């Protein structure tokens, strides 16, 4: 469903993603993990048509990300890094807009929106302008927009961060259920323990280069141990002034 061949993105001299090769089959939940600045969001941006690759190629749902960008947009749902919300629209108006742009009938949009707002615990804030929403509410709104159109492929940039535990559990259960129905999920995250529970494929990226790519069953030991080993070990410096005599 997603295929990358030597996919590369450069910003000037800086190589954000370096010759990425990747295959994600239909119905997989692929967790794309790495530290900040590793190239995760840039990869998502290239696959969703937000950034043009410098070289290499990629297909989503069998369509070329450069040549068929508009058709790909019709088939995917995206939770972008900056959430992609308009300050001047309310939560509910964002869903109405998505429905009308993607050709859903008004009744269908209303029906799906109502369910999504309930599932995401957004009902109380449906009339709130995006500019006045908390970060969690904004993220849930953007996620609801991604799901509303029943996409073939979902690209989710850090979907579980800033989300309350109950909604996070609801979202992960939902992702597992739709993946079983053939929807492909490609997500980035920093919450390794949560990702390990529901992802079917693990890809680790470090400085734009893939450091690990396997099914979740093939991960030796815990995902956290593998991550610390291959990607980045935690800092060990002790801040001795913390907890010492007040200054």
């Amino acid at each position, binding site marked *: 469903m997603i295929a990358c061949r030597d996919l590369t993105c450069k910003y000037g001299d800086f190589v954000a993603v370096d010759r990425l090769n990747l295959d994600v089959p239909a119905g997989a939940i692929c967790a794309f993990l790495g530290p900040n600045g590793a190239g995760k969001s840039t990869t998502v941006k290239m696959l*969703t*048509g*937000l950034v043009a690759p410098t070289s290499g190629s990629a297909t989503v749902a069998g369509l070329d990300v450069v040549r068929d960008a*508009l*058709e790909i*947009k*019709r088939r995917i749902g*995206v939770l*972008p890094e*900056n*959430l*992609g*919300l*308009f*300050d*001047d*629209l*309310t939560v509910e*108006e964002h869903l*109405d*807009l998505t429905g*009308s*742009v*993607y050709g859903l009938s008004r009744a269908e949009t209303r029906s799906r929106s109502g369910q999504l707002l309930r599932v995401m615990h957004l009902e109380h804030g449906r*009339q709130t*302008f*995006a500019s*006045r929403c908390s970060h969690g509410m904004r993220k849930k709104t953007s996620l609801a927009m991604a799901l509303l159109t029943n996409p073939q492929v979902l690209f989710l940039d850090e979907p579980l961060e800033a989300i309350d535990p109950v909604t996070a559990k609801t979202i992960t259960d939902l992702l597992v259920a739709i993946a079983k129905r053939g929807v492909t999920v490609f997500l980035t995250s920093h919450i390794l323990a949560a990702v390990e529970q529901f992802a079917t494929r693990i890809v680790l990226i470090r400085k734009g280069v893939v450091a690990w790519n396997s099914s979740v069953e093939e991960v030796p030991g815990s995902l956290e141990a593998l991550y610390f080993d291959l990607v980045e070990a935690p800092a060990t410096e002790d801040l001795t002034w913390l907890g010492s005599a007040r200054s």
Partner: protein
Amino acid sequence: MVRVRAVLKAVWRAVRRGQGSFASIGTNNFFLFTALLFQRDGGFLYLIIALLMLFPLSADPLRKIPRERLVLWPLDRREWWILRVLSPWLNPIMWVLAALTIWAVRHSVTWQLLGAVAGLFALGFVLSDVGGGAWDGLARRVPGRGLIKKNLRQMLSTLDFWCALVLSIATTIYRFFDRTAPPEAFLLMALLVMLALSSYAQCLFGLDGEGGLTRYRLLPLRGWRILLAKDAAFLIVAVVLTVGFHPLAGLAAALIVLAVGHDPSVKHMRPQVRWRFSTGAPLGNGVVQVFAMSIAANGVARTSVLLLIPCFAIYGISLWWFGRRMELE
């Protein structure tokens, strides 16, 4: 006092940076061309600009610091009071008021003028604390759906719109109460209304922010459709504001203003600040805009309504061309 001084210093820095956004008036078509064309005779127009700018300028400086952060800082009651009393003096309008008071005492300005300015300042100061809810209420009442509704709300949150509205209301009242007024006057006023809106047409995406621009790129829409939603909101406002005196001239001018404004709007998506005059493009684009819209409006008003056809054609070509350009960006 050390804590109060630190907070005041932070507020002052934020106020100073915020006031930089008022510099947008320096590249705003309405201000530039009224100053150029009317010079000393433009008193009424400058008064409108000054009064409109007084409201956002009057905002409480303490609002520059997020309320949650402010209450988390370990300030005692006495320090709070000092901060409350001193912080309004970080607003330059307070110093203007102080100067006006001294002049009023010396009878250089009237107490009525001082009262009016002080009243407006106080209103702006208080509204900056409670105004968010009022704006939300107004924004909710904006008619329409989807992108056009959003774009209308954005237009309403610029001073360009309110300036055009003041001119429109004044002209409409004049039209209905003075039947002897010459038709040329209404054509000129329609042009003035469009001049007030023209800088906004040079920065159509300025209020969408990073998130909005990302969403535009993700929507499965052709560039011209996104641009058309922007233009539709602009055209609605233009026609509504000129309907009382010269809607056809207003429409012709609006089409041309948009056709010329697409270039800076698409090529340089300059971020804008709400409740300010729009930052226009470099002067060249503004000159072309004003010159072309004057020809179009004059032609439609004095020659034939059929001249609207070439206006629509020029607009259509610009829409197609810059829509395509948007997809390539």
